[in-house]
């Protein structure tokens, strides 16, 4: 187990280095720089700005300097927001995104897994059909449509929910549903199909034959194995949802990380773009590691040696 984690951390380091290198290269390859403006800047100003952000250095030098900063945990200053560092931007944006994302993940787990289980146990009955109809709908409706619909129906027409911001608990309802809608449906379908598969296996038949209560059969024996694909999906989902969704944040006017990220692409705010990418990458590899560790906890047969 210890060796497994050491190995994984090492390979994570390499993954991150690759991510940084590729993002850095791609970013500098797209036309237009951070100081491309509608009204062209005087050459003197351009020079001063480039010097300030070290953009006058050769590319390899910028790369090495940047890497050095990242290792020290310094993601540099934002090019487009005077006096704001990338660390500060993440510090302010991440908790907001994570709060909505966390609630969405909860929603996905609390509703998605039980719905999947019920559907599997009531296979082809009305409960199953209703749940799967809704789940198919949920998988096919993109979050921007769902978000806009929620605003249109509940804010504009009915006036039940506020339309922007995050002041009260009511403000969270729309974004959390819009953000979690797809995953909720997906997890319900995933749980259902893997549950069905597990329920047909011999050991379940054995358990039932032994006269174990249905609660123990489903809750103890079937659920554990049925949850493995769900865990696989939920790990990266947590990373993706917690770091913010541009679409949902834009529609509901939430000042989270997703908003900063997409704006940074349009603005060529190199450091913000890089910083958020790295942050996301770290989050993602850590989640994948946790998923792998969880496998072992759920099913001891899965070995950690590889």
């Amino acid at each position, binding site marked *: 187990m210890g060796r497994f984690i050491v190995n994984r951390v090492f390979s994570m380091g390499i993954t991150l280095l690759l991510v940084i290198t590729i993002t850095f290269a791609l970013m500098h390859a797209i036309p237009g720089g951070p100081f491309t403006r509608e009204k062209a800047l005087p050459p003197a100003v351009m020079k001063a700005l480039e010097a300030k952000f070290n953009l006058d250095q050769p590319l390899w030098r910028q790369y090495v300097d940047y890497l050095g900063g990242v290792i020290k945990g310094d993601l540099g200053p934002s090019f487009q927001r005077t006096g704001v560092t990338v660390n500060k931007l993440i510090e302010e944006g991440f908790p907001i995104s994570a709060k909505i994302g966390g609630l969405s993940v909860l929603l996905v787990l609390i509703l998605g*897994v039980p719905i999947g289980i019920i559907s599997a146990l009531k296979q082809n009955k009305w409960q199953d059909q209703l749940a799967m109809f809704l789940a198919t709908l949920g998988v096919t409706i993109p979050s921007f449509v769902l978000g806009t619909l929620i605003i249109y129906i509940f804010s504009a027409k009915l006036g039940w929910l506020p339309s922007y911001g995050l002041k009260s608990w009511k403000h969270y309802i729309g974004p959390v549903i819009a953000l979690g809608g797809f995953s909720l449906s997906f997890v319900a379908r995933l749980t259902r199909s893997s549950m069905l598969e597990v329920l047909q296996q011999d050991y379940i038949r054995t358990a039932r034959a032994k006269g174990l209560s249905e609660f123990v059969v489903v809750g103890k024996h079937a659920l554990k194995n049925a949850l493995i694909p769900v865990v696989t999906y939920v790990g990266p989902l947590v990373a993706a949802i917690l770091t913010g969704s541009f679409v949902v944040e834009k529609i509901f006017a939430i000042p989270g990380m997703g908003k900063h990220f997409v704006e940074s692409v349009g603005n060529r705010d190199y450091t913000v773009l890089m910083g958020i990418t790295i942050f996301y990458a770290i989050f993602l590899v850590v989640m994948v590691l946790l998923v792998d560790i969880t496998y072992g906890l759920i099913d001891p047969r899965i070995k950690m040696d590889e």
Partner: protein
Amino acid sequence: MVRRSLTLILVMMLMITTVTGCGGNNQTEPQENQSEQATREETKEGSVLIWNLRTEPKTIDPQLNSAADGGHVINNTFEGLMREIDGKLQPAIAESCDVSEDGLTYTFHLRDAKWSDGKPVTAQDFEYAWKRALDPNLVPEPAEYAFQLFYIKGAQDAYEGKGALEDVAITAKDDKTLEVTLNAPTPYFLALTGFYTYMPVRADVVEKDPENWARNPEKAISNGPFKVTAYAMGDRIVLERNENYWNADKVKIDKIEALMIVEESTALTAYEADELDVIDQLPVQEIPRLKAEDPTFAIWPQVGTYYYIFNVNKKPVDDIRVRRALTLAIDRKAICEKIAKGGQLPATGFTPPGLLDADGNEFQKVAGDYYIDPNGAKIEEAKKLLAEAGYPDGKGFPEITVIYNTQEANKAIAEAVQEMWKQNLGIHVKLQNQEWAVCQDARHHGNFTIARAGWLGDYADPMTMLDLWLSYSGNNDCQWNNKEYDEFIEGSKLLTGKERFGLLYKAQDVMMETNIVMPIYYYTRPLMVKERVKDWQRTKMGHWFFGQASIE
């Protein structure tokens, strides 16, 4: 069966308890809810104005700002020597102003005004602020809008590193007297002193934290009707009444919340649900409905032009006849009414309405329509020109591409133009959308044949539009180089009144006759303000001012 259902319920409960066990972070929310209701109640009492700024300003430091969003905020937090109220220039921090006979030296006499921390506003504060804008080594970065001060003697040299800041002709004679000498008589100089780049800042405040002072509520000391009291990145800026403002009696609003809702349809929903009082960015597709149904909907003029530029070095648009044919073959009225829909006006020249000449006449009206018919296409004339250029009925016309920056409205207009050229001239052009920065880059470097462009005026004089086409202008994306044009513009800088405008009219004639741009429409600004908000102001250049507004 009953047992099965029971099992299910138990499993569900198990799931719920385990999962919620991990995350009970919802306890604080009822309180937040109360505070939210409190804000709304205050609004009903009539003291809080909620306004959608839409985008987060890069900065709200008067000298560093160069964008409209920052300009809106600064116009409410700072006050310059003059201020535009109801479209007229009125003395603000300056009580009076003497102009020397040659029109070169301005002496401003300051009134007793105070900063938000109670200290007096002095002439030295202005001197410091103006020189700060011109400092090429300014921390955190040189001011992008320094050129707004280039009318002042020595200013341009200092900014470009050819002269010293001390030699710039801005002098605080004493605490209350500011003297400025200009290069040439500039009729709109007084109007400029109301512009944000000219607003005062305090040396001791700025130097404590040059990058962040304006955004930091503890350090943001200003002299306008409001002061910054909270700043949440990407979310909102909160402004509160500045008790020390010299004209504080006129300020009726206690608090302004400037929000950053990027999505136009969300902002509109919020407005219609009474959660917002002021918006000026509306979804295009909603405009016809709002126009018909909402009495608070209004279309304001905006000094700016939407046009296509030709790269005069690229075939086939290096031929003036081709450019003219393309320009004549589109129906501007149809584009404005059927596609843009925001009350835009067909453009027949480059300088938009809203800018006056020495006699007080609209520059745009006096300049005339040139060869363009605002109400439709001139198909026959266009066809004839195209034939003369060697492409009768569009035969043999090379395949060219029109680039535009990605945006629904730009796309719709580009498609209409494409269709009109096809119908009227028999030529086919390709369209290519480019992401904003990519399109900018292509235009600046001349990597295009025809490109979409737009220009909004910075100050109330045709020069704000016309100096774009100077051969050495960094914004001359047409790659056009014309000595005669340069001479007219340069010459106008040394003259005043009618003579000056004579040259400006001639300059526009040259650029329009060579047809380097294809004007499409003059911008307008659809906006909505709740009826309960009274006496709000919007300057000619499109900046909000709430310093005399009230809420009923």
